[in-house]
């Protein structure tokens, strides 16, 4: 069937903010879909609330709306735009839920909009657990014995009927298995099921038999309207059933199934999607009992998913693109396979000649108090993928891509147990065997390291299998790694004496130069960074180069080299023979185009999200626009930057000095761009500079494009920057550096409490806290790790200061200011977690001018070429510079979308020497207030205090825009998907200092019809001000009514809770905030937040908001 001509315009829904369970994969799939539909001449209308995506760049779709992803908002945009069709399968569960809501409510029919891709019936059958089960039974596919329950009574009955423990509780219609879990007794069952019933959009949970310990396999399937079906990719989880697939280490293709096992599962998968009548891409999950061959169907996602993004990157097959084409009528055999081009079609099954490993990236390095146990709901924020010719190589490459501070698995010590970064003495003691058993048996982020360690200790396969239930095939691989590592440790002689055979064998198993150096040094307790240069990573590299051992680059071509592929998507591997054919870059020296390498930003994590991928994609665009070849190195399978046609050449590699150096050598690259890949790329600047002379000897003449490394250092190094600020007359908060506890104490004494304290050179404010007194300082020092190369920074804390963020670019002659953003929260809340406004709302014009002038001074003074970001604070009309980031920032895409000025692209052009006057820069858009609001992972991460502080906690952001600031804020708030409740009860508890200040908000709330409950102290102040409030008690008061009970009984719809210290976890407040998170009750922890929330409630009362179309015309150069 060819393209449908009866459809002219298509609305595509995005997935909203980045959060746990829904990350950048939908930017990737949505972007592919938009491109695929536009190239076919369809008018595309995109709705998404996330300003940081490439997908909702104005050039991706014909109409872009950055509006809350809520059914009523989408409806109003539909009424305005009148699309012919709705494509919902590209925006994850969020989009699917909106589409089914609108379809069930009859809105789509009423407006004459057709749901394309899988239809409503197919979606319902796949999503409703009961219907799904019936479909499976009708085609004889075994599903776990399970009962759908709509109430707690039914849950208890179901448990009786199944009659064995443990049981698995899974809520229907949620993101990433939210609210589910394995339960071992009635108590746990009641707890988990009641949360699940609340979280499910249809108040339904499934109680089912446990298949813990079975293997988990996934099949990525495509089907078109002519019933052609293919399996794009198979994947096998290393973690057995019980751990969500998003939390599992995953291998593609599957390894342990025989052909008949695999074909059986393939048949089941195809039978199932035919019975469900799914059209497009979908994902089928199976549990497989390796001992008996029994199969259970676990679930189907009737849409593209995180797994399909992984499958696309693992095979090279563009699933989202093909799914979009299928949705508009094409059949698979009509579509060319873009990987191999002419002569092959999309109707084939990719075959791999390599092994892919995905490891999730968890936020526990930042959230040390959070519960690390992995189960059926997701906790990871992102993931990395690596490719090798064997499992071992792919696994170690993936490990070194994670950037958790440990670039290769080291022997476990008691320091790992304590989570300290060095913990000098403990690092000399081996982790106890009993702890190791625990780490193996309970799935956490530490499990893979523990596996490796078990084999380092010589534990037999069967013992580890008994503990972990993991498939032995994988265990043999870890055993192989441990044995090879032992051969490095035992290698006799210097690094210079390593022979070619050994070196090649180690490299083929994926050992990095640093790993080899570390192992040869016997993994010293002082850490891998402390190995002397002569015996360190560089020495191994030099020896390797002497032996002429370099990686070979292989193409990901979807066909195991059966056809000549044309997509330049590569991975490195160590193999004996020389490169030839499609895997080589011929005549590289004679090519005329300059080659520019962009360093990507790696996995999505707290503090480094999709915003940096956005910057990289724009940088690549700018390079290509300028007539150069753009080469990207990255390891995140979810992103647009790692799409096969984003760049001229893509290297799917760890972002390490070793891998980057080798790519540069192969490419004979002319330049490298470090300022778009976030802190990952910037952190490589100094090490890279020190390696440059050696690379030059190797015949490589590469320049760091844009801001010089020295300028990067001047901006990032506290002391150097202070000197710079003094020189040009900028005011900074007083600060000092301490490398010992005494130094820190005396620094704090000099500056005076409260102080802001944090480790140097970190991203996202890890370990940053505001300390009010000596006692808190001592507590901080007790936990902190201090060393001469890891000092602590102590700063004057600016209380009640307004914080500003500025994004700007400099071409060396001129500074271009993107925007000055005003934070809603006072300085002291991490800027990444703040709500901010463009334009500024309360700052005088003269102050804005001063900010702009200082920005210019800093840009030109430091010699920035490219983009930079500055944080300012204003206290009592005094302007302070807090920090300068000589790189693209988290807010850059927000600025671009709010102002219509594509800052990243302009900055990237500047790094290549194109002055602003030589570029055509669009006019700044005015007339709208744009608000960026953060989205937090509190619901997913138990054990984390849900209050913003100096340490960043948000995973993503949303944007709202409107001529009216209150409405713009309301839209942003709605987009966070926490409701703005316009009536009911409010609970107010405020620290003493702010009790008087909260009076106007309480007055407004009462005026708006709220019943206000307040803690006794707060209530007294309110009553003194003539306000009628009810008293509610703290839990510690042991009196009724207490706040928690009021919340549980549904009497509270809004909470104002301003804690005494923003960082200190006061137990009472923490419990109350956690409950609010779990019950989806909005709460604010700052006075300014309370003020805006009340304004939003008032604005919401004025009726529906008007969608604002993003009207930006990027001028084509």
């Amino acid at each position, binding site marked *: 069937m060819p393209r449908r001509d009866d459809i002219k315009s298509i609305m595509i829904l995005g997935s909203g903010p980045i959060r746990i369970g829904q990350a950048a994969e939908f930017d990737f799939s949505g972007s592919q879909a938009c491109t695929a539909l536009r190239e076919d001449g369809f008018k595309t209308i995109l709705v998404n609330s996330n300003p940081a995506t490439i997908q909702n760049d104005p050039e991706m779709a014909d109409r872009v709306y950055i509006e809350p992803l809520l059914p009523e908002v989408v409806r109003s945009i539909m009424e305005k735009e009148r699309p012919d069709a709705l494509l919902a399968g590209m925006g994850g569960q969020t989009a699917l839920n909106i589409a089914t809501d609108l379809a069930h409510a009859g809105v789509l029919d009423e407006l004459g909009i057709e749901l394309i891709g899988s239809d409503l019936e197919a979606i319902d059958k796949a999503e409703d657990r009961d219907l799904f089960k019936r479909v499976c039974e009708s085609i004889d596919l075994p599903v776990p014995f399970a009962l759908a329950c709509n109430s707690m009574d039914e849950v208890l009955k179901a448990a009786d009927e199944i009659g064995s423990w443990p049981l698995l509780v899974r809520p229907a219609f949620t993101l990433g298995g939210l609210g589910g879990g394995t339960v071992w007794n009635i108590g746990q069952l009641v707890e988990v099921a009641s949360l699940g019933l609340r979280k499910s959009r249809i108040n339904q949970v499934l109680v089912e038999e446990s298949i813990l310990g079975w293997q988990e396999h996934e099949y990525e399937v495509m089907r078109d309207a002519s019933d052609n079906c293919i399996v794009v990719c198979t994947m096998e989880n290393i973690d057995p059933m019980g751990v969500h697939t998003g939390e599992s280490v995953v291998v593609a293709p599957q390894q*342990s199934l025989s*052909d008949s096992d695999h*074909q059986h599962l393939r048949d089941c998968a195809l039978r199932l999607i035919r019975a469900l009548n799914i059209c497009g891409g979908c994902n089928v999950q199976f549990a497989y009992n390796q001992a008996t061959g029994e199969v259970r169907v676990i679930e189907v996602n009737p849409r593209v998913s995180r797994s399909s993004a992984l499958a696309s990157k693992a095979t090279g097959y563009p699933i989202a693109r093909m799914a979009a084409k299928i949705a508009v009528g094409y059949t698979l*055999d009509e579509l060319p396979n873009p990987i191999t081009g002419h002569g092959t079609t999309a109707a084939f099954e990719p*075959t791999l*000649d390599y092994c892919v490993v995905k490891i999730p990236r968890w936020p526990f390095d930042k959230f040390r108090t959070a519960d690390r146990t992995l189960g059926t709901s997701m906790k990871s924020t992102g993931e990395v993928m690596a490719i090798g010719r064997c499992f071992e190589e792919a696994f170690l490459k993936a490990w070194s891509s994670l950037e958790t501070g440990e670039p290769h698995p080291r022997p476990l010590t008691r320091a790992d147990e304590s989570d300290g970064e060095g913990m000098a003495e403990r690092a000399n003691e081996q982790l106890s065997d009993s702890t190791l058993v625990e780490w193996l048996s309970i799935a956490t982020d530490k499990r893979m390291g523990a596996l490796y360690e078990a084999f380092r200790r010589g534990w037999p396969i069967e013992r580890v299998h008994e503990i972990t239930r993991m498939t032995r*095939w994988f265990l043999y691989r870890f055993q192989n790694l441990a044995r090879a590592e032992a051969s490095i440790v035992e290698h006799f002689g210097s690094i210079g004496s390593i022979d070619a055979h050994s070196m090649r064998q180690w490299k083929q198993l994926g050992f990095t130069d640093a790993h080899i150096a570390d192992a040869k040094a016997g993994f010293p307790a002082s850490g891998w960074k402390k190995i002397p240069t002569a015996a360190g990573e560089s020495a191994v590299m030099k020896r390797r180069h002497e032996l002429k051992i370099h990686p070979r680059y292989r193409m990901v071509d979807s066909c*195991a080299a059966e056809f000549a592929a044309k997509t330049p998507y590569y991975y490195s591997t160590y193999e*004996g*023979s020389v490169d030839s054919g499609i895997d080589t870059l011929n005549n590289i020296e004679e090519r005329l185009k300059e080659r520019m390498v962009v360093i990507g930003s790696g996995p999505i994590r707290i503090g480094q999200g999709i915003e940096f991928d956005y910057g990289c994609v724009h940088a690549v665009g700018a390079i290509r626009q300028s007539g150069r070849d753009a080469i990207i190195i990255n390891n995140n399978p979810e992103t647009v930057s790692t799409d096969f046609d984003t760049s001229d050449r893509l290297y799917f590699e760890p972002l390490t000095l070793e891998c980057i150096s080798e790519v540069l050598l192969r490419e004979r690259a002319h330049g490298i761009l470090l300022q778009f890949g976030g802190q990952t790329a910037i952190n490589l600047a100094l090490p890279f500079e020190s390696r440059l002379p050696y690379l030059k000897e190797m015949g490589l003449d590469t320049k760091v494009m844009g801001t010089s490394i020295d300028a990067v250092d001047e901006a990032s190094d506290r002391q150097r920057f202070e000197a710079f600020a003094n020189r040009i007359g900028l005011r900074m908060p007083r600060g000092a550096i301490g490398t010992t506890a005494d130094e820190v104490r005396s620094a704090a004494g000099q500056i005076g409490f409260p102080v802001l304290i944090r480790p140097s050179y970190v991203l996202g404010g890890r370990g940053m806290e505001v300390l009010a007194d000596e006692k808190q300082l001592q507590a901080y020092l007790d936990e902190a790790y201090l060393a001469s190369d890891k000092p602590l920074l102590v700063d004057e804390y600016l209380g009640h200061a307004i914080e500003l963020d500025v994004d700007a670019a400099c071409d060396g002659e001129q500074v271009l200011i993107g925007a000055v953003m005003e934070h809603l929260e006072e300085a002291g809340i991490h800027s990444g977690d703040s709500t901010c406004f463009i334009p500024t709302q309360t700052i005088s014009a003269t102050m804005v001018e001063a900010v702009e002038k200082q920005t210019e001074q800093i840009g030109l003074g430091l010699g920035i070429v490219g983009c930079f970001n500055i944080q300012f604070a204003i206290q009592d009309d005094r302007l302070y510079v807090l920090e300068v980031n000589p790189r693209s920032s988290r807010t850059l895409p927000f600025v671009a979308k709010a102002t219509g000025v594509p800052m990243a692209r302009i900055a990237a052009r500047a790094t290549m020497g194109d002055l602003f006057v030589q570029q055509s820069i669009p006019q700044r858009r005015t007339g709208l207030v744009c608000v960026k609001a953060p989205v937090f992972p509190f619901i997913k991460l138990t054990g984390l205090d849900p209050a913003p502080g100096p340490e960043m906690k948000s995973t993503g952001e949303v944007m709202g825009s409107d001529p009216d600031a209150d409405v713009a804020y309301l839209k942003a708030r709605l987009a966070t998907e926490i409701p703005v409740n316009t009536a009911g009860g409010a609970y107010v508890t405020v620290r003493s200092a702010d009790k008087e200040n909260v009076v106007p908000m309480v007055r407004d709330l009462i005026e708006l019809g709220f019943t206000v409950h307040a803690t006794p102290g707060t209530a007294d102040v309110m009553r003194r001000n003539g306000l009628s409030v009810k008293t509610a008690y703290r839990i510690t008061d042991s009196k009724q009514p207490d706040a928690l009970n009021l919340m549980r009984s549904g009497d509270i719809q809004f909470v104002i809770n301003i804690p005494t210290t923003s960082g200190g976890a006061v137990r009472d407040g923490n419990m109350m905030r956690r409950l609010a998170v779990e019950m989806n009750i909005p709460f604010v922890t700052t006075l300014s937040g309370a003020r805006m929330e009340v304004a939003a409630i008032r604005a919401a009362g004025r009726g529906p908001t008007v969608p604002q179309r993003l009207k930006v015309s990027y001028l084509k150069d």
Partner: protein
Amino acid sequence: MSGSVKAGGGFSPGRLVTPSGDAPSFTDAADVLKHALPPVPDEEVPGLLLLADGSRFEGLLFGARESAEGELVFTTGMTGFQESLTDPSFAGQVLAFTYPLIGNYGVHLGRSESAGIWPRGVVVRHAMRNPDHRDSVAGIDEFLRAHGVTGIEAIDTRAVTRRVREHGTLLCVIGAASDERSLKQRLAELTPPDLEDLVNEVSLDEPILLNPGFNAPRLAALDCGIKYNILRELCRRFEVLWCPPDIAYEKLVSDWNIDAMFCSNGPGDPAHPGKATAARMTIAEAVSRGMPTMGICLGHQLLGLACGLTTYKMRYGHRGANQPVLDLLSRTVAITSQNHGFAVEDPEKGMLAAHPSGANSGPQENLAGVEAVVRYVNANDLTVEGLDIESRPAFSVQYHPEACPGPHDAAPLFERFSSIVAEHLRGGE
């Protein structure tokens, strides 16, 4: 089986016989693994793989650790190494696996496609030790050793694949690195295995009724190197007479009173004057007499030749489990399992994806006197994948509906044949 025992001859007549749709149990290539093998010395034997284009790959020998020679081909299937190794269509060839990890789940009893290993040598990136599967009785190393077949591992199989893709299938030798000079000599003297009567090497000598008494039409299955799973599929639907490729059609009718005819897969050049041509004569006769006939793989090529079409050697053929086949009638695609190095020429489009040697059968006489119509084509290179015979109850496919290894998408073709036979019998009564 009469006379000498052939390397692959597969049937164990002792374990007959049920008058049912179940095939009897066959002698399986994995059966030898029930007995322990003598241990191998620990030290590695450096090996060489030399290709006729002059390229040289260093690796390590495994399996029999001796030497091997043949035509180098590659298969892209990621699973199914045991089924591939025991597929008689690989006779005469050296088989390279593009997937780097071969043998993960070990060798299983009763999963072979014949009683022997057919490739003369095996090339892999990693021959996996410590297989892990409930049915595994041994690893690929032991399997090759038990059958005296030499393999070479630690080879950059992607580079090997590219050579084959660029140059077409090539002759090659494998052996110990210490014997390089004599290996080169052997390579220089090597003649293409296509010149040998490979079908004779892999086929049965005397007919055997597999499921006598089964209440179904009687079918003669010409064995040109038939895979066990084809026999199993046929036995579910027919009373199957497993017979040698050169049995005469008249004999099948007069002595055996057959209702239908089948011609199997097999190795080598379909135009080889040996037993392949004898089989061609038999099916030509069958088709011209209106006997329901189905051909798979080599059987398909022989049917094409019988209808006067030309066959030719392909550049590097189709070997793997992901080949898309387009049904020109229904416009639907099946993902199929394939293993062939020759193809039937498209009467209109000619010899697509041909080998640089240009080897082909030349013009052929239309022995069957009927016209063959192209019904199935490869969605990638548009080569002929199946024929329907005009006004006769006969068809053939280049790919493997019996799978093993590979997807089951094409399995309904056996049903299709079954109904053709049934309809023919009804019409004939």
